[in-house]
Each structure stands twice: as structure tokens, then as C-alpha cells.
């Protein structure tokens, strides 16, 4: 049997291979006192994601269904939903991979529900902002008027690159049992970002961030349930970052953490011995 040929044909075909039932949790704050489930029959083709299914429902069956999405490719972080018992990205979840005939979709928990499948992410973003997720430099004047880039070796980049893939989708926040019972808890995403910036060799803001995260509602509230890492769609592994952060803070509190200056500025181009780049040939128009 020509196995390969069949595979290519199967992947490219838009033939309906299955029918599934979408159970969508609906809630309109202007009309409803309580959320309820609405059911829709959705034909499925190979490669169809839960987001595709919801778009089919909205276009062909019920225009009132509300959900949030933008990029359709796992980059923007807007389409997080509680799908079949887990927080998942609707655009990254293949219907056929779920393997069920009924797909239950609810808004992400631990955040207020604005309407249907849409959570209010404001508190989540506020927590992210709280940990100062940017490079902090003591020489603010230089930072505001940069004369060049900061040094960083590929090895130093690896200290944090895994954690920089975060798309702020809040799946981890929805999965975390600590966030479920403590509204003040900073949450896996923000804590992971506190670590990500603190170990960046270009940063000088560790002490400022310690003031935020070394707190009863900060990193010590995490008890390593690991649910955050299980659901993260970008392989960020926030649980790893949080435990490393705790270790770093302990080291710092014991006076064992070496003080370091942020990486220096790469001298302005051209460097000695390097030929100057030719003049730009394409001029940008306004």
C-alpha cells in the first residue's frame, strides 16, 4: 500500500471525517443570571482546531457566541479556554486529537467571565506588570538615550530564553490551584517573568523585583503543583522558573548571591577594523 500517498491526500483533504457536539458555556451579563450550556453539531475535517469549530458555529449556526481570538496560530495568546477539562489554546487544539465526540468549552477559570467564553484578563496583566517585566538599569539616562546594544553571549541568553516564550495567555493562571483560592497570588506567569528578567545579564533590577515577589502572596505561595507547566502551550515551564526564583532569593537573603553589574554597551559601529556598512538604498516614506 502506498502509505505516503494516502497520508498526503488525507492531510490535504477537506472531507468531513467526523461530527462532534460542541457544548459551549454561554453567559450574557445583561440577560442571564447564570451561565448555561448551548449545544452545536460541528462537522470536522482533518486539521480542524477548536477555534475553527467555534468560527463555524458563529458563521453558520449561532452568531451570538462570543469568544476572543486574533492570530489563529498560537502567538497572540487571546484564545485560551477551558476545553475538555483543561485550559488550552483553542487555536492550538486539534479536535481529532481530543478524541471525544462531545467537546465541552468554558471560559478560563480564576478570572472574571465577561461574556460566553471571554475572561477578563485585566488582573492577570496587572500582576505581570507588578513584577517589572523589563530591563532595569541603574544608569537610566543611558538607557533612555541608548548609544548601542548591551552585550550578551549566547550562553547568557540561555539563562532565560525558555521563559521568554511566554505569550501571556493565562492558561497557567487558570490551572494553578493556588491562584484558585488566593486572588492576591501573583501567579505562575508573573513569577516566571520575575525570574526571566532577574537572570538577564543586561538587567540590574533583581533587588527591586525581590521586594515584589518575596511576599506572602508571592513565590512562596507556590507549592509546586505543576499544573501551570502542564498546560503552558509554549513550553515555558513556569514551575521550573518559580523554583529557581525561590532558590535565587534564598541565596540573596543569605548573602550568598554575588552582586553583578548589568552588561556593558557594545561600542558604537563600526568597530575598529570593520568596514562601514553602505548607505541605505531604500528610503522609508511617511
Amino acid at each position, binding site marked *: 500500500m502506498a502509505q505516503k500517498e494516502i497520508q498526503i491526500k488525507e492531510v490535504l483533504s477537506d472531507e468531513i471525517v467526523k461530527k462532534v457536539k460542541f457544548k459551549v458555556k454561554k453567559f450574557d451579563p445583561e440577560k442571564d443570571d447564570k451561565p448555561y450550556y448551548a449545544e452545536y453539531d460541528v462537522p470536522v475535517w482533518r486539521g480542524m482546531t477548536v477555534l475553527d469549530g467555534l468560527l463555524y458555529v458563529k458563521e453558520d449556526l449561532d452568531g451570538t457566541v462570543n469568544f476572543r481570538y486574533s492570530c489563529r496560530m498560537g502567538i497572540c495568546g487571546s484564545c485560551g479556554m477551558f476545553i475538555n477539562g483543561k485550559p488550552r489554546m483553542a487555536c492550538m487544539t486539534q479536535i481529532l486529537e481530543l478524541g471525544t465526540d462531545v467537546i465541552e468549552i468554558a*471560559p478560563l477559570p480564576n478570572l472574571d467571565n465577561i461574556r460566553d467564553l471571554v475572561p*477578563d484578563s485585566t488582573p492577570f496583566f496587572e500582576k505581570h506588570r507588578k513584577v517589572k517585566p523589563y530591563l532595569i538599569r541603574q544608569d537610566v539616562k543611558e538607557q533612555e538615550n541608548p548609544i548601542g546594544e548591551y552585550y550578551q553571549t549566547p550562553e547568557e541568553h540561555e539563562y532565560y530564553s525558555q521563559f521568554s516564550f511566554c505569550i501571556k495567555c493565562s492558561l497557567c493562571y487558570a490551572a494553578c490551584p493556588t491562584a484558585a483560592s488566593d486572588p492576591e497570588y501573583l501567579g505562575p506567569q508573573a513569577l516566571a517573568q520575575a525570574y526571566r528578567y532577574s537572570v538577564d545579564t543586561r538587567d540590574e533590577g533583581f533587588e527591586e523585583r525581590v521586594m515584589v515577589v518575596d511576599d506572602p502572596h508571592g513565590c512562596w505561595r507556590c507549592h*509546586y503543583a505543576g*499544573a501551570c507547566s*502542564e498546560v503552558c502551550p509554549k513550553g515555558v*515551564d513556569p*514551575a521550573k522558573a518559580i*523554583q529557581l526564583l*525561590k*532558590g535565587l532569593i534564598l541565596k540573596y537573603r543569605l548573602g550568598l548571591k554575588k552582586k553583578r553589574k548589568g552588561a556593558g554597551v557594545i561600542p558604537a559601529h563600526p568597530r575598529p577594523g570593520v568596514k562601514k556598512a553602505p548607505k541605505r538604498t531604500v528610503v522609508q516614506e511617511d
Partner: protein
Amino acid sequence: MAKKARPNRIGVKGWWTGGKYGVEKKAYFLHRLTGLIIVFYLIAHIIHQGPWIAWWELIVVLAFIYHAMNGIRLIITELGFGVGRPTLPSFPYVPESLVKTRPLFWILMAFSAIYIVLAIVGFAKGG
């Protein structure tokens, strides 16, 4: 009139419900539960000095064994030991921090099981 959003935080229930997760989440719930049992026992013990119902003491001992064993794992891992270094994830990504620390969990649970059996045997003999 436009109404406000619907609160959707799971609450304390989220310690054991809220989705299908791995063994660490269950360990988390048991750790909190056994912690509460121990605290409750200590408070009750201070208030009530007389003799105790024996099976209740057994429960506290079992809770203590689990709490201590899992606590060893938490002390080690929560200080960042054994959770792995930051890496470039390849997909499908299996969380390294969980995979790497899981053997430690099962070893400690094996110890828990041994202690629990010993405690129950001792209890049955009327210790």
C-alpha cells in the same frame, strides 16, 4: 442596565478540582489536607488534654508521615534543586521540572508506604 462580569474564581475547591492534571497536583492537595489535619490536631490537643480516640491518633500519624515525606521533596525542589536548567523547549513539550522530580516523589512515597504499614501494624498490635 449593563451588569458586571461574573466572578469565576474556583476557590478552595480548586485544590482538588479544576482540571485533569498530573500526580503533583494530587500531592499538592494531599499536602494541604494533611497539613490542616495536623494543625487541627495540635489545636485540639491543646484544648483537650484528656485521652484521645485511638483511630483519630492513627489518622494524625498517617497524615504526618505523608506530610513529612512529601515535605522533603518540596524543600529540595522548591529551592530549585533538580528542576533542571532553562532549556529550549522542543514540542510536544513535556515539562522538565515535573519529569525530573517525579522519581524523587515516588521514592519518598515508597518510604511513606513503608512507614504507614509499620504504623498501622503497630496500631493493630495496640501500640
